[in-house]
């Protein structure tokens, strides 16, 4: 991973009326990161993204993109970014090509050839001359990404990029993000409430709750930390359950016939195995259930609200 900071957010705060939507939020994205920005509905994800892109004015804090201060060096800062905020919006009475031409016109260094290139990348070359009004939601998302790519950005910000898409559309967008990150070295900030998706494509993640960033780090580190779930199949479930419940590392034990699901407060499957074996419990299988981002999310948000 590179270490050049592309996006730095410090103390970002926004209040609507008496409600603080974003509260002293700090965020840092480095070159090469695919950063998943997670949170429940209403947690402040989209407001944060709107502030990062200058659509909403923060009450406090600052945003720097590529070292440029968003407020005082807006043009230089925003030139490094491609973004889809909320939903990609286009003039539906114009073709995809014409919509991109209007965008390209605001970016003097972008050539007509680049429009063809981004349409090709987004897989829309065949439908480029069709009016956007005839496009499906998935195609509009792809066109949004094509638009975001026009200025060869260093950072692409996508707000809920797979919202409303069917599984095939979701897969297409995920593949496109992975491809762009790998081939063009573009960094991404992706806000989503689809945790499985973020887990699949993101290298880093941050969790926002009630406007505050409550966890942040590399996805694999986040998944390696905290609770662990161990699945044990035994011919003596009663005895095993009794023993496990007495172990200090065990948080809870649930049972289904001869299968026990054990939640522990750390990496202790080896200890549990030893405990059962030394007590003469016959174990058929013992395995660690890989922790998912969904579990992690629910753990740290105390299951608060839908992701």
């Amino acid at each position, binding site marked *: 991973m590179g270490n050049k900071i592309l996006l730095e957010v410090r103390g970002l705060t926004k209040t609507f009326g008496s409600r603080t939507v974003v509260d002293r939020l700090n965020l840092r994205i480095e070159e090469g990161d695919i950063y998943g920005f997670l949170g429940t509905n209403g947690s402040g994800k989209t*407001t944060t993204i*709107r502030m990062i*892109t*200058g*659509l*909403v*004015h923060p009450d406090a804090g600052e945003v720097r993109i590529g070292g440029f201060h968003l407020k005082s060096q*807006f*043009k*230089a800062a*925003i*030139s490094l*970014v491609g*973004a889809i*905020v*909320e*939903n990609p*919006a*286009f*003039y539906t*009475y*114009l073709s995809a090509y*014409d*919509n991109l031409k*209007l*965008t390209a*016109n*605001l*970016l*003097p260094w972008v050539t007509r050839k680049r429009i063809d290139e981004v349409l090709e990348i987004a897989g829309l070359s065949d439908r480029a001359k069709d009016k956007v009004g005839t496009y499906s939601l998935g195609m509009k998302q792809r066109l949004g990404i094509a*638009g975001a790519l026009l*200025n060869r950005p260093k950072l692409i910000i996508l707000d809920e990029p797979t919202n409303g898409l069917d599984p095939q559309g979701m897969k297409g967008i995920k593949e496109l993000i992975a491809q762009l990150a790998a081939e063009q070295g573009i960094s991404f900030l992706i806000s989503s409430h689809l945790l499985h998706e973020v887990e699949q494509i993101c290298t880093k993640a941050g969790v926002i709750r009630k406007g505050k960033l409550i966890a942040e780090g590399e996805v694999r580190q986040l998944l390696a930390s905290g609770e662990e779930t161990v699945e044990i199949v035994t011919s003596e479930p009663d005895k095993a359950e009794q023993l496990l419940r007495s172990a200090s590392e065990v948080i809870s034990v649930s049972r289904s016939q001869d299968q026990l699901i054990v939640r522990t407060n750390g990496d202790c499957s080896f200890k549990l195995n030893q405990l059962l074996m030394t007590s003469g419990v016959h174990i058929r299988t013992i395995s660690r259930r890989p922790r998912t981002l969904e579990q992690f999310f629910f753990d740290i948000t105390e299951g608060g609200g839908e992701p």
Partner: protein
Amino acid sequence: MIRLIQNEFYKTFRLKKLYIFMAILAVHAWLTVHFYNAGGEWKSVILMPNGQSLPLTLLNSMAQFMTVFIPIYVADLITGEVKTGTLKMSLLRPVQRIEWLNAKIVSLFVFMTVLLVFSIAAECAIGTLAFGWGEQTLYAGSLYTQTEGVWLTLRLSFSMLLPYMACGMIVMFIAVSATNISTTIGLSIGVLTATQYLNAFEQLKPYSIVNQMYFFHEYVYQINGEAAAQNIAVIAGYIAVFYLVSAIIIKRKDFIL
């Protein structure tokens, strides 16, 4: 900024609305001529039936269309872009908000100019087809040679862009403040209609923008220094104040799209 304006032109000329408005103006001119020809001259605004006099004859009535066309166009131009989110196509690029607003104002000016030029051309053509071009231009009871008539028509017609622009700036202020298109159109037409009642008070009449939209060409025609300056100052005041307020609103606005 120039590129933003180019984009606005491109969108304006791709809008069906513009051509519908043109068609309405042409139909209005045709109906006026038609009713005159059908024996309604006793209650027609046409006093000298010829092609060169028709644009000036119908200049007053253009205002009644503009008080509707301007709100519809500006609602689409500003509120529509905010509502549908297409505003993001510009604001997520190296474009300052004030540049975006200025491009919209230029676009509005061009829209009004296009409609005005079209209406002059259509009225000349329809009048000429119905009555012939004619020998002289009649305006405010005076007769002018063809050359003088053409010059007078252009001078007075284009002077109307000033009150139309003031009207546009009032509507623009409403458009940047409103959250949906129907509110912008409804409120704008309501406000413009309400200002017509200022006409009832002789002292307030010059401050009524609708009064200016109907009669500014007559003040320009009379061109008495002080009176003309007063009318121009009122209109310029409207433009300046509403531009300033709109600019402040746009600069401070949080776009929650």
